[in-house]
């Protein structure tokens, strides 16, 4: 078939642009930036000569520890920009300046807002820097690590991009900057810079999954010295570190997985090749997706894989893969991935969870996720819940608690399709919102008291799963602020 390349391109660009889900214009951020621009330009006009000196001095001062370069009209002030630089190399201006020069060779980002940490680790040294992104909205946190401690050996280990208009940032929480750095000695080190004045912080290297399915964490108290708690993370089977400053718990941010991407793909291919489930083998795409999160935190040598469920509705439709990662004979956790394909685009999500998974429990509970969430009224939200479980004849969304909200009532239900997949649209009163922390991954779950219950043909209850993925994540992906949207929920 002969086609016109111009028409092809025109159609392609149109489809690609239409597929972009544009968030609302961040007018407040823009206004603040305009004010900042106006202020800067006004000052430049009236005090050109003076400003020339200030700019020269300011450029040098910006890389000095403990200084911020610009802050007066920043749309959302990061506490991280004002906390004094932590670490035992904070006062070593020569080291810090050389590190900044090294940093710029990696990121290419010109403005350094603040050096959060510059100091020695048990092995080597690291520098943690907050920077502006290429424009006005986004911020980045970059971590460089040097095995020898010398600046010439600094290598970029972490790079987190954050939306300044959102409150949730992976590397920076409201209470601390907590990063984990993989040393070249194959050990993992942590730096926790508390954003308030505390003497100690607590650190947990990861959760422990018990035989009864419960998840526990052990915490270690670490003294804050020169503004930072620094140490080596314990060797654990599930590497999901968290820090605790005061009463607030925040996950560490780290991008270095315990398995390389190549290793992860190899595991996915092994799973496909050795697929023993009673369904068709999954696609490589979903195998990689479903295993990506657990393989980032659990070493390949520490688990075996059991297939639990695989279904594919084709395009358009949904593909789901659920597998159990068995840590030993008694202990395991499930993970499942969902790939939704419409005519022109593909949406991928992965969910991991740790729960009671004794042998007879494997695969008996429904796999549940929030597919869509829309603000309906001031007092309620429309939620599209999807669930799948082999052998289920009916599903219900139920408030599982006996007091408050709907007190055990059923919000909605549905019959699964030929694939065993059900879609249930429910309107959830805001009083049902109760944020709980999911124990394994440490995510905040916004509807922790709502569950999907599966029934067999005789109406017997055959499995229950809480709705575990977070409404907040969905709202953030739409550019909406969950807290603002729930004005009365506290």
């Amino acid at each position, binding site marked *: 078939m002969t086609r*016109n390349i111009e028409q092809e*391109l025109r159609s392609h660009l149109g489809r690609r642009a239409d597929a972009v889900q*544009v968030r609302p214009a961040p007018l407040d*951020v*823009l206004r603040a930036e305009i004010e900042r621009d106006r202020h800067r330009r006004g000052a430049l006009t009236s005090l050109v000569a003076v400003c020339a000196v200030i700019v020269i001095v300011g450029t040098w001062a910006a890389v000095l520890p403990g200084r911020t370069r610009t802050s007066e009209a920043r749309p959302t002030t990061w506490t991280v920009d004002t906390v004094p630089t932590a670490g035992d190399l904070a006062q070593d201006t020569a080291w810090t300046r050389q590190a900044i020069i090294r940093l710029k060779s990696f990121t290419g980002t010109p403005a350094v807002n603040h050096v959060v940490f510059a100091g020695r680790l048990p092995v080597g040294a690291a520098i943690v820097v907050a920077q502006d992104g*290429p424009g006005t909205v986004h911020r980045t946190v970059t971590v460089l690590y040097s095995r020898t401690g010398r600046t010439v050996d600094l290598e970029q280990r972490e790079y987190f991009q954050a939306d300044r208009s959102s409150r949730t940032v992976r590397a920076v929480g409201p209470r601390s900057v907590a990063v984990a750095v993989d040393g070249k000695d194959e050990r993992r080190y942590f730096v926790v810079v508390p954003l308030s004045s505390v003497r100690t912080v607590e650190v947990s290297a990861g959760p422990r999954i018990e035989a009864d399915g419960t998840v526990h964490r052990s915490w270690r108290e670490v003294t804050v010295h020169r503004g930072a708690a620094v140490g080596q993370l314990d060797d654990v089977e599930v590497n999901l570190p968290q820090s605790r400053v005061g009463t607030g718990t925040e996950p560490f941010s780290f991008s270095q997985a315990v398995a390389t991407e190549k290793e992860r793909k190899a595991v996915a291919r092994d799973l496909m090749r050795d697929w023993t489930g009673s369904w068709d083998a999954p696609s490589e795409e979903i195998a990689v997706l479903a295993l990506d999160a657990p393989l980032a935190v659990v070493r390949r040598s520490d688990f075996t894989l059991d297939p639990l469920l695989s279904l594919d509705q084709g395009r358009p439709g949904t593909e789901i893969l659920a597998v159990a990662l068995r840590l030993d004979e008694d202990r395991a956790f499930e993970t499942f991935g969902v790939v939704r394909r419409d005519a022109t685009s593909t949406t*991928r999500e992965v969910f991991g969870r740790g729960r009671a998974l004794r042998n007879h429990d494997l695969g008996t509970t429904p796999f549940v996720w929030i597919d869509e969430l829309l603000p309906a009224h001031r007092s309620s939200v429309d939620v599209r819940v999807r669930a799948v479980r082999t052998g289920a004849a009916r599903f219900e969304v139920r408030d599982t608690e006996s007091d408050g909200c709907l007190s055990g009532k059923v919000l909605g239900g549905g019959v699964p399709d030929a694939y065993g997949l059900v879609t249930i649209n429910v309107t959830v009163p805001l009083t049902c919102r109760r944020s709980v922390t999911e124990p394994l991954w440490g995510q905040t779950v916004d509807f922790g008291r709502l569950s999907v219950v599966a029934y067999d043909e005789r109406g017997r209850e055959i499995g229950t799963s809480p709705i575990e993925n977070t409404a907040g994540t969905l709202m953030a992906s739409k550019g909406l602020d969950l807290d603002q949207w729930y004005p009365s929920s506290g």
Partner: protein
Amino acid sequence: MSGVEEDFSAFVHRAWPGLVRTAVLLTGDYASAEDLVQSALVRTHRRWRFVRRRDCPEVYVRKAMVNLRRDWWRRNGSRERLVERVPDTGLVQADGLTTVLETDSVLSRALDRLPRRMRATLVLRFYEDMTERQVARVMGCSVGSVKSQTSRGLARLRESLAEHGTCPGTATDATPSRRYP
């Protein structure tokens, strides 16, 4: 808030989605696109009293976007940037895939590989439907340069499609519809 400011806010509110979509095509990722539009709007605001009198202020913003993008390329070259999520490029499978999806996948990758200036030229020509003269004005170059960038860009895309088993036709002289004055 003054009338001028209200006018600007209304303009931002109205034009934002279209500007971001164009910026995504220019930059390849959403975060950079938002940043680019923000920066361009700040520049536009400086001259808003003049720009607002124009029939189509979006043209001014787009020109600012292209200029800012060009500055950004100059400053930072072609360094790879890490992103949290890998952009969706669709699926390519041997069976059960429509021609549209396959073409999209090939074109998407081919566009991402184009030099950024060439890519910007194609986006302005074939997404924004600008004439060669308008593109030249926005890009700050000659019409001849736009023609050669367009021609070479299309040739590369055609080659990419051909490599994947299709035989695209030659470019036509079809005049794009003109949205801009």
